[in-house]
């Protein structure tokens, strides 16, 4: 007898990128959400996304990515693999890049998030956003949000000394269209400006 998808096949894998507080288990999470307490409907989470405060109640197993996409309708952050191997869902959490699919929303009560929608300031594109346009650093665009957020992190971390260094520190972000050459050029251009 067969029942549903062979879930045991699912593997959750960290990329080579450093992760901030990523976990792959749901145990005991209801107590990790700061001062909030769980209810039957879920766990309250309060966070600031792109400068805007949000207070929501979510299933404790909700990933940060699903919170953004499903609850807050911030669909600019994309779901590529949902297992931390493609980087399409990269956002900035308290200024550091993280795969939002690999961390739970309830772990980040009180956190400050920046997504691709919040990167521009006052209608002015971030230098890396401009650089992506200038260097034609995408094709289908699906990985672009993750590439840009990761690139912003890479620049802040100071890992842009050479093309080789950028390739290494951006290696958690997959571009299936193969626009890598131009993505490196974009990060280099923006790094020079910052």
């Amino acid at each position, binding site marked *: *007898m067969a*029942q549903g998808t062979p879930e045991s096949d699912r593997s959750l894998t960290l990329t080579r990128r450093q992760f901030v507080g990523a976990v792959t288990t749901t145990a005991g999470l209801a107590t990790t959400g700061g001062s909030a307490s769980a209810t039957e409907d879920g766990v309250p989470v309060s966070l600031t996304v792109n400068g805007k405060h949000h207070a929501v109640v979510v299933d404790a197993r909700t990933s940060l990515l699903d919170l953004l996409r499903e609850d807050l309708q911030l669909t600019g952050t994309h779901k590529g693999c949902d*297992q931390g191997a493609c980087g399409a869902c990269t956002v900035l959490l308290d200024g550091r890049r993280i795969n939002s699919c690999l961390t739970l929303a309830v772990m980040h009560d009180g956190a400050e998030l920046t997504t691709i929608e919040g990167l521009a300031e006052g209608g002015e*594109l971030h230098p890396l956003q401009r650089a*992506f346009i200038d260097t034609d650093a995408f094709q*289908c665009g*699906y990985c672009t949000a993750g590439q840009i957020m990761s690139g912003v992190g890479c620049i802040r971390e100071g890992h842009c000394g050479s093309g080789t260094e950028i*390739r290494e520190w951006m290696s958690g972000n997959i571009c299936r269209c193969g626009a890598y050459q131009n993505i490196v050029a974009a990060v280099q251009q923006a790094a020079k400006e910052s």
Partner: protein
Amino acid sequence: MSALSERPENPSVGVAIPHESASAHVSGLAKYTDDLAGRAQGTLHAYPVQVPHAHARITALRTEPALAVPGVVRVLTAADVPGVNDSGIHHDEPLFPDEVMFYGHAVCWVLGESLEAARLGAAAVEVDVEPLPALITVPEAIAAGSFQGGRPVMTRGDVDAGFAASAHVFEGEFEFAGQEHFYLETHAALAQVDENDQIFVQSSTQHPTETQEIVAHVLGLRSHEVTVQCLRMGGGFGGKEMQPHGFAAIAALGAVLTGRPVRVRLSRLQDMTMSGKRHGFHSRWRVGFDAEGRLQALDATLTADGGWSLDLSAPVLSRALCHIDNAYYLPHVRVQGFIARTNKTSSTAFRGFGGPQGMLVIEDILGRCAPLLGIDPITLQRRNFYADGQTTPYGQPVNQMTRLTTAWDQVISNGDISARQREIAAFNATHPHTKRALAMTPVKFGISFNLTAFNQAGALVHIYKDGSVLINHGGTEMGQGLHTKMLQVAATALGVPLSTVRLAPTRTDKVPNTSATAASVGSDINGGAVKNACDQLRQRLHEVAATRLGAHAHDVRIVDGVARALGSNQTLEWNELVKAAYWQRVQLSAAGFYRTEGLHWNAETFQGTPFKYFGHGVAAAEVEVDGFTGAYRTRRVDIVHDVGDSLSPLVDIGQIEGGFVQGAGWLTLEDLRWDAKTGRLLTQTPSTYKLPSFSEMPEVFNVSLLADVPEDGVVYGSKASGEVPLMLAFCVREALRQAAAAFGPVGTSVELASPATPEAVYWALDTARNRSDVAAYG
């Protein structure tokens, strides 16, 4: 130059502009199908019940337990289908099968208020099966005589006489792997019944018309009751040419039965275990060369791994046969093709569509035989190039070889090939545990759908009273820049600035009966249709302008949104011209159409001129291989490509770079492994299926376009760029073979697995290293 090819003054085509959605992409505002789900109210989620057997008969399907799961709304089964229970075009792919044909085959779908409810419902469905014998590998299928579809044969000349006259005859076998598309956006569809009782499906599809047709036949409706829209895709690569239809049909069926919007979005695991991939092939060959290494005869049998259903395997196989020659003249040929039926996902279109597989066979043959012939591979390849005036084995004349030889010479000179070959020889002589090699690849790839009827396209262009222009065409955007090119074509054809033109999403109620956006012809055929519509409009506007400017319509020119008559300084602004046309009751909307001229194809005799022209490119790659591990890196790549007179140079260069990277992935990294016993896909996540990443990029990567090569008879002198560059990556594989050979004695012929993963390269070089004698046979 034909009217289709000729460029007017100051055209928008040919300008290196950013992708039309560039600002939206970098701001996170560009919407993909699943991003739309939040806009619909009361949307249900669909989840498949996948059965973990490669082949089994379903003896019982109990859905009641699912309905007891909180939040489950309905289970969709075969009994719910009002029309035809089929998701393919050959009626061999039941949407709800009663026989499981591959490991992970979905047999029914659960609809839930949340994805979690649907998932738990799917887990509760009980499926009883009687396991049946399964065939997993191609050799197993060949041994069992398990084939599907036709068995085409391509012949020319007298192969036996060719072998008799050959100085050297070699034979071999070669089996190579397929490829997972891994478009970053998994399959997605969102269906609802709209306010006019029209079935409206948003689908991530390269072929909206066929998605519409399949949805209609599943629902028992006619096409005019179903509308399919595709905003854009997060990658397609052929994987969304045939595969999206069933998922769209599930969403549409659910929407009709529940009256609520239904969302299908596959997880990566579901996508990789359920959707089709590039065909792996098995080949057996015998080849003859004359004393100078000129190909005399080729006798080959190609068996494509079709998977469980026919899908697009027949045209894929045709294209494989039509590309086994690549750039080389084969006087005597006999190639037979088979499609194996195996218990795996149904193999489907993937960038190149069989062309790469056919060409891989001949490039592998030349790579293996060059050392046996004692001829440098680059010399052997060049010596066998077609000469203009010769014909392909299927009878199409070859007449642009100078483009290929020019590109070949440019790569040799720009890439400093001779000097680097000397450096490599010196390096290898002093490095016993590290070897380098440099290989080149020519590519000649036929452009057009092999099936002549598909080479047609439509467009719809509106000019509104305020002068703004809205265009629609039948092609879909998957990142290849088609929409960017179409905006440039429309602006050029109308003579207006690019900012005047806007493009609306691809919809079947705007442009009907479209072909798939495939075969690299998206811009050729849709561009032809957009131009045709714009030409009609411009002709009408010329008449209006002529009366205003006091000139003959033939003497009117519209450039940058200003109409002028030849020899006159008087001007008429575009907006004024459009307004005047409206008041004169001149129609400001036009439907465009294009059919590719000059094509004919006889699938029975396997003869004809199936291609409008050939795309050309040349690449050189240098690699370095570590003798202890087989690990390698690509030190440098040089490419010169023929895209005619480019419609959009940034787009085309992106296609070339990306195509090369994807081809190198197929040939060197992406290792699809199937459990030979259970038929389960073992590499079903990106943690085990290695995709090209930043780390594998060539350290130096030079791409340039062949200059001054407008293509007559194609829209604004351009040429296709989508698939052709993928095959340039053969040079990486051949360089790895030569580097592996360099660990052995001079003249070692190396058999290299495909993909040539570091492990495969290690075994190849280890075999070469352990050879004490020089291979000598033939």
